[in-house]
């Protein structure tokens, strides 16, 4: 049993606030995810995700506004297209695609945020540490 190390890239307007909403409701969730705030999920270039894996992250989360609710109107459309391709690339390189997680969490969805963290932490826990995959 190991404690997975997870990096979460969260958009400033919806998902980061969703995380704050979870906090305000005092919902408890595992501490494994460390959040990096970005203005929009569209800012998350594939390099940021790959670099996180290279630095030893066992999992990477990308959370943005729901489609249609993006603070920048269509920034997250790019995320929706970009990240599934990146998952395929990960698979090709031998990294389990489940290590990259994409979802939409609004500022109101504190409960969903906490659930997503629970779920993803458990998904990653079931996988070996990334250091074993990237030997």
């Amino acid at each position: 049993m190991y404690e997975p190390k997870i990096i979460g890239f969260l958009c400033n307007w919806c998902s980061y606030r969703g995380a704050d909403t979870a906090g305000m409701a005092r919902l408890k969730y595992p501490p494994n995810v460390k959040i990096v705030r970005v203005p929009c999920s569209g800012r998350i270039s594939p390099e940021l995700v790959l670099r996180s894996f290279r630095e030893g992250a066992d999992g990477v989360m990308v959370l943005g506004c729901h489609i249609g609710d993006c603070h920048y109107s269509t920034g997250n459309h790019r995320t929706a297209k970009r990240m599934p391709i990146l998952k395929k690339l990960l698979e090709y390189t031998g990294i389990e695609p489940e290590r990259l997680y994409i979802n939409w969490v609004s500022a109101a969805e504190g409960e969903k945020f906490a659930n997503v963290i629970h779920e993803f932490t458990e998904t990653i826990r079931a996988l070996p540490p990334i250091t074993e995959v990237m030997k």
Partner: protein
Amino acid sequence: MNDRPRVGVYICHCGSNIAGTVDVADVARWAEKLPYVEVSRDYKFMCSSLGQELIEKDIKEREVNRVVVASCSPHLHEPTFRNACSRAGLNPYLFEMSNIREQDSWVTEDKLEATKKAKALVAAAVNRVIFQEPLESLFVPIDPNVLIVGGGITGIQAALEIADSGKHVYIVEREPSLGGHMAQFDKTFPTLDCSACILTPKMFSAGNHKNITMFTWSEVEKVEGFIGNFTVTIRKKARFIDESLCTGCGLCQEKCPKKVIDDVFEAGIGYRKAVYTPFPQAVPKYPVIDHENCTYFIKGTCKACEKFCPTGAIDFNQEDTLVTLKVGNIILATGYDLFDARKIPQYGYGRLPNVFTSLEFERLTNAAGPTGGKVYLRDGVTVPKSVAIVHCVGSRDKHYNNYCSAICCMQSLKFAHLVKEKTGAEVYEFYIDMRTPAKSYDEFYLRILKEGTHFIRGRVAEVTGTARSENKEGKLIVQAEDTLIGKQRRIPVDMVILSAGLQARADAKEVAIKFGISCSADSWFIEKHPKLDPVATMTDGVMVAGACQGPKDIPASVAQGAAAATRVLSIIGQGEIEIEAATALVNEETCVGCKECIPSCPYTSIEYLADKNKAHVIEALCKGCGTCVGTCLSKSIKLRHYTDDQLVAEMIGAMQAMKLFEAIDLETAAAGQD
């Protein structure tokens, strides 16, 4: 900035909010050893003036040139600490915040784990701040126009305050008239003055104010932009009435042959026509044709209204129209829904005819209501001789809503008075606790006690039509445990009034998403701070007021409406607002002119310079989302304040800390095995 970074780290206790879970002193000691950290402190409240002075002093005296505060969410206090840096002469973009409250101490069960997480988040912020660069903010003018969503008493109050100051207000109301729930009530507690008498003049003032434009029978479709510069699209639903011709004479309503049960204004106990204004004093005076029930729309014939309309104002071909408005600030005053008493089947509402909801009783007792203010049973002729009023229906009940709806005790006391006054019936109030905390409220309770209303302390178990003895036959029997005498009681009555609780609007969550604000688990809109910023929200330029923020009575709603108006006027008074300097920039040396970035920009702020074969960001249009950065294949675009260097540094800071803790844990485990 060639100076060597000298980072100041400040760990906030936030009273016990953080310090109760995170070992703040340990985090501060640990941060002191991080690279480039000059000073690391922990303090009870970093946002207090003393806390801010600590930062300012260190900038001046210890030459701190980078600042990290680990405290609450940056959405709460980033501006506070940026200002503190500015005051001490440090560029505010050399500040970074670490969220160890909302995203750590409040959500992490284990204290040791919470402390570790705080350390990792602080390490991430320290690593990031080293790479941060000074930036100059942009200032944009604030549009002085204001949008108010909801035309109930709260929205009206806010609109009048702002309009009287000379600023223009747009009110958007979903129903055909202003007025909201208050227009449905008969009397208001505790003064028992007539609701319409105090509301109608306000509605009229709002309707005729030169600085107020009303959009009734309309809804907000889309909201774009940010504080000072919102663009709002409003759907004006087809009224099928040409407002420029209609005089509001009411002849169409008189002649319309189609009667429809009025589920909205009359709470289902009265009728209206297919062409209608909800009530005679409606503002605006123009009616609406309910096309779902209008005979012409259903069968293609009738047009009685058109035949009789003296000004030719009926327009069956009217369609919904979209109106685009520019506003600088928005106030949401969307009110509440009544708890649906059908959800508690044992109370019999919808099954036992003489069980009424509070809103039905309001209409029943209203002089302008379907019975002309006579309190009758559902048959419309019998005057009840005994009435039970049930408190906390759908409130303070773990099966429905945990919260207290705040108004039901006073409302029920008011009902007791009105029933006694109008019918002389015996009144039984079934309550859990009597909650009458506002000005003159408890005095009102004493008055109702003196009037001879019976008070039974206990939650009602059941309302049934099945009697156990002959003398109770034909009555409604209200069963409850009287907790003051410790006995079950079965009280036979003719009428039961369920004081249904208040709930957030059914579509509150969608509305919250539309305006970019948050809802609590009960769907009430969340204010910026529950005590010190009760009407602002986490989204600058969007305020909440009245019952959409939580259950409230009329005085509290009016106070919040006025408060929201004042907050908005204070923002307008500033004239311009600082916006983030985080815009994108193309590195022309590496840009290959592939144009991939151009369609990725949601704001068409990237242009192609053909002479140079380079992309170029128009700064005034760029909103700083960074989507182009993620798209650029030659890595030639940087988003200021969110550069690759800064984000990677933040990620590495967190990763290094996590790896360190993992190594320590492994060592400890190994030592334990020896």
